[in-house]
């Protein structure tokens, strides 16, 4: 059992790597399509090997570390960024049986572990001893902590309704009604906050090329850089999965179409979320730093608190109450 | 949990509820008010709340002990009497700040009053707690509010420094207290003081004696910081000096009193049963006495070298903390009565002294001793009141300070701890020297200016209450003695009903 699971974990790792490879390509293709251009199309049929080629290129790149950098931390930062990104996947229930670690405090675990990445970003920015990197790192940290609050608070409504922090039980609680409906406000806040947490457009300020060259990873090259990117895309995976679990009913079928296996339902919903994220990137311009912070504190946080209020109050209303 | 929270008799908590409501109201009003509106009436509101809470306590003084919230909250004699002192002190300090505080460079008036309320709320919770968790939460509410209060003049470097030192050393002391509490919990599996009381003896006898003692030492280390007893007193002088005078008065009076409530309750209740194993006799009493003696010696000796009045008061306060520890340490027969009497006296005289210091400091624009030079020529009445207050601090009849100290001393003699009694009286004599420095300055030195001091009416009232109280308590302490004497102090040490579960 244990060994089987461990092998499963290794398989999961490779699935993730595969997902990232495809996701990068998919993203470029989707954006290209939306912006009426072609996207990668040279390497392999339909450009399918483009990402593989990129990774290979990075593998063969010379590894440079700036003389003035703090070497230990500089080298540790990418690892620190990737490790939690992968570790959070452990608690995601893909189907009733396919969950690697079914712990009681799954959601809390996710929130806690995912915030470690903030530290990695700061460490990377700081240890480079480069002004752009430092500024990027600081900004990124400020942004991530600002959005973590609404993110964390937006799911309180879900927890109240499900009465559990276990992700499997949360999914199970959505058998009748996905939480996206009663918790729509929470969902909106969660979505916006999660996009920001992912440092993705329109909230990709830490790596704003026009202002900060490349943000906290200016000095990174080769595989070290690759791991920062990898972490980002693994988070896209994890966050999309979490969104699916928390608000979209996880593996629960729609319209009673139970003959379709749960995993398929999960993947369908998951892909929609991922697509949505790419879509955002193609559509929105980047916001300014001050707008970003104001949105987080002055809009999302009050909304998240309001959502908690509403969740508690609406429960007292007849008929609707049972969904809360 | 079955005993629904809603069905609890909340009326016992009225003082705290008044305070918390007022505090919440205050901060909301502060939010809603335009910036340019005067915040003074918020202060009056705070005063009203404190007086209201105090009146409630006073009216129910001597009422039977009530246990609430599964025994974590109780209104026993310690709670009642300490609360009265705390609320009285806060009321005086609020009055003081209302009449003169806005000239002390405190810009955030609304927050100032709010923080005072929050602090006294914490203190009040502390006195009423019979559970380590609530005790700790109360303590921290008081401490954290005090940290901010100490640094509320944020545009001044000395205030920043004072607050910084306070927060760092306060944090360390909290950590020590908590560390000690964690062992208490580990040994007894409960945070309820009375459950702990019963189980700790068993733990002591079954081979965990070192841990029991460790918990005591760690907590005493932390408490030492909170009551500013030597050798954990380092923060006090800087904090007293850097804080606005009204806040210094608050720290000197309310914080210290609350900390004594904490020490008394925890040390006494938790470790009381160990008396049958001679632990008190052999370890706890000597430990506390050494702290007390060190405080007296260090406080009084270092005070001799001070030139800044508030620093001097800090060291004086350290010495006074030593005196007040004596009854607890010696487990004297009038432990509670004498401690409370002295704290009450200390409240009156200290608030009075700080009120005078505030006026003088503002007039001279500095806080050195020379600010008092020739005060007698300028304002004889102020000088006279200050003299009485200082004499009381020095423990000279016919003041409350004298009688209080005599009362404390008797505990030491009665329990045959002669050496601490000797230290007490000898250091008291040493203290004459620096307390009389006020008198030397006021009467023996020429005045740099001729004009009389301007004293706002509120400050005058506070000084008046301080002096009248000090002399009155010194001459006719009977009323207070009887009020304290009629309380059933035994209830403090044991639960009246069956002890609650873990």
């Amino acid at each position, binding site marked *: 059992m244990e060994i089987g699971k461990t092998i499963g974990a290794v398989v999961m790792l490779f699935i993730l790597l595969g997902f990232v490879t495809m996701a990068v390509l998919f993203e470029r293709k989707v954006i290209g399509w939306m912006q009426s251009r072609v996207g990668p199309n040279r390497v392999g049929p339909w450009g399918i090997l483009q990402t593989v080629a990129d990774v290979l290129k990075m593998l063969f790149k010379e590894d440079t570390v700036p003389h003035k950098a703090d070497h230990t931390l500089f080298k540790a930062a990418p690892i620190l960024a990737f490790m939690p990104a992968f570790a959070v996947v452990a608690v995601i229930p893909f189907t009733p049986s396919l969950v690697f670690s079914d712990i009681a405090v799954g959601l809390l675990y996710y929130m806690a572990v995912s915030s470690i990445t903030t530290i990695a970003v700061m460490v990377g920015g700081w240890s480079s001893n480069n002004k752009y990197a430092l500024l990027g790192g600081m900004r990124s940290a400020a942004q991530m902590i600002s959005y973590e609050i609404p993110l964390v608070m937006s799911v309180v409504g879900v927890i109240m309704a499900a009465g559990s922090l276990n992700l499997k039980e949360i999914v199970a609680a959505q058998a009748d009604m996905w939480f996206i409906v009663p918790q729509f406000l929470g969902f909106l806040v969660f979505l916006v906050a999660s996009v920001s947490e992912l440092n993705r457009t329109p909230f990709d300020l830490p790596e704003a090329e026009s202002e900060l060259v490349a943000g906290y990873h200016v000095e990174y090259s080769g595989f070290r850089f690759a791991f920062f990117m990898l972490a980002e895309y693994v988070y896209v995976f994890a966050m999309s999965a979490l969104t699916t679990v928390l608000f979209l009913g996880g593996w629960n079928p729609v319209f009673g179409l139970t003959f379709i296996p749960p995993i398929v339902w999960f993947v369908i919903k998951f892909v929609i979320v991922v697509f949505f994220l790419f879509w955002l990137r193609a559509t929105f311009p980047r916001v300014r730093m001050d707008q970003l912070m104001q949105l987080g504190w002055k809009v999302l946080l009050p909304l998240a608190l309001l959502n908690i209020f509403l969740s508690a109050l609406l429960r007292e209303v007849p008929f609707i109450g049972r969904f809360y | 949990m079955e005993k629904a929270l809603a069905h609890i008799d909340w009326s016992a908590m009225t003082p705290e509820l008044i305070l918390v409501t007022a505090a919440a109201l205050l901060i909301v009003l502060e939010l809603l008010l335009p910036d340019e509106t005067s915040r003074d009436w918020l202060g009056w509101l705070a005063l009203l709340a404190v007086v209201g809470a105090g009146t409630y306590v006073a009216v129910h003084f001597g009422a039977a002990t009530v246990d609430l919230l599964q025994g974590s909250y109780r209104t026993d004699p310690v709670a009642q009497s300490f609360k009265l002192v705390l609320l009285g002190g806060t009321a005086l300090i609020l009055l003081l700040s209302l009449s003169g505080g806005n000239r002390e460079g405190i810009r955030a008036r609304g927050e100032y009053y709010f923080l005072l309320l929050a602090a006294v709320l914490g203190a009040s919770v502390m006195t009423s707690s019979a559970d*380590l*968790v609530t005790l*700790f*939460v109360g303590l*921290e509410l008081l401490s*954290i509010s005090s*940290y*901010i209060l100490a*640094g509320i003049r*944020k*545009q*001044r*470097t*000395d205030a*920043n*420094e*004072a*607050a*910084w*030192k306070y*927060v*760092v050393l*306060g*944090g*360390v002391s*909290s*950590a020590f207290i*908590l*560390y000690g*509490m*964690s*062992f208490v*919990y*580990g*040994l*007894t*599996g*409960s*945070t309820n003081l009375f459950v702990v009381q019963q*189980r700790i003896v068993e*733990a002591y006898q079954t081979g*965990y004696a070192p*841990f029991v003692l460790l918990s005591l030492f760690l907590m005493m280390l932390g408490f030492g910081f909170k009551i500013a007893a030597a050798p954990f007193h380092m923060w006090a*002088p*800087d904090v007293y*000096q*850097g804080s606005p005078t009204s806040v210094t008065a608050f720290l000197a009076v309310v914080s210290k009193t609350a900390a004594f409530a904490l020490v008394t309750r925890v040390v006494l209740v938790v470790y009381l049963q160990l008396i049958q194993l001679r632990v008190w006799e052999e370890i706890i009493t000597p430990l506390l006495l050494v702290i007390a003696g060190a405080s007296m010696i260090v406080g009084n000796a270092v005070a001799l*070298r*001070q*030139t*800044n009045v508030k*620093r001097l008061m800090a060291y004086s306060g350290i010495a006074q903390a030593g005196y007040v520890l004596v009854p607890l340490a010696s487990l004297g027969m009038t432990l509670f009565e004498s401690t409370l009497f002295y704290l009450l006296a200390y409240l009156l005289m200290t608030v009075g002294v700080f009120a005078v210091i505030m006026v003088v400091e503002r007039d001279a624009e500095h806080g050195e001793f020379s600010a008092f030079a020739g005060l007698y020529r300028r304002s004889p009445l102020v000088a006279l009141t200050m003299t009485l207050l200082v004499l009381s601090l020095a423990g000279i009849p016919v003041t409350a300070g004298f009688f209080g100290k005599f009362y404390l001393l008797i505990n030491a003699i009665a329990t045959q701890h002669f050496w601490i009694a000797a230290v007490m009286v000898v250091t008291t004599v040493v203290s004459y020297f620096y307390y009389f420095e006020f008198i030397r300055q006021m009467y023996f030195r020429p005045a740099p200016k001729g004009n009389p001091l301007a004293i706002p009416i509120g400050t005058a009232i506070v000084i008046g209450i301080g002096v009248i109280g000090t002399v009155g308590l010194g001459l006719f302490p009977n009323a207070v003695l009887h009020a304290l004497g009629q309380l059933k102090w035994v209830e403090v040490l044991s639960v009246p009903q069956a002890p609650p579960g*873990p």
Partner: protein
Amino acid sequence: MLMPVTSYLALSAILFCIGLYGVLTKRNAVMVLFSIELMLNAVNVNLVAFSKYGLYANLTGHIFSLFTITVAAAEAAVGIAILIALYRNKATTEADKINSMKG
């Protein structure tokens, strides 16, 4: 104490001592704050360990540690706020420069 708890106690004692050492020796004020946090967290280790392996194991320790965490956060927040004020006035976070009062 029961065997399993000893190692936790040792861990927390070590953490506590490191924190204390940091408070006493670190020159940077932020580090001092961190050290205090470390001390408080050492307590949490203790509490949680006792809550499972104490003489009377129960959940109270967990609840206590929740309060500890909150209080630690509040304390850190106040500490940082004071530090910001100090920095604005003095442009330093070196702890040994925060020392203008003597006596």
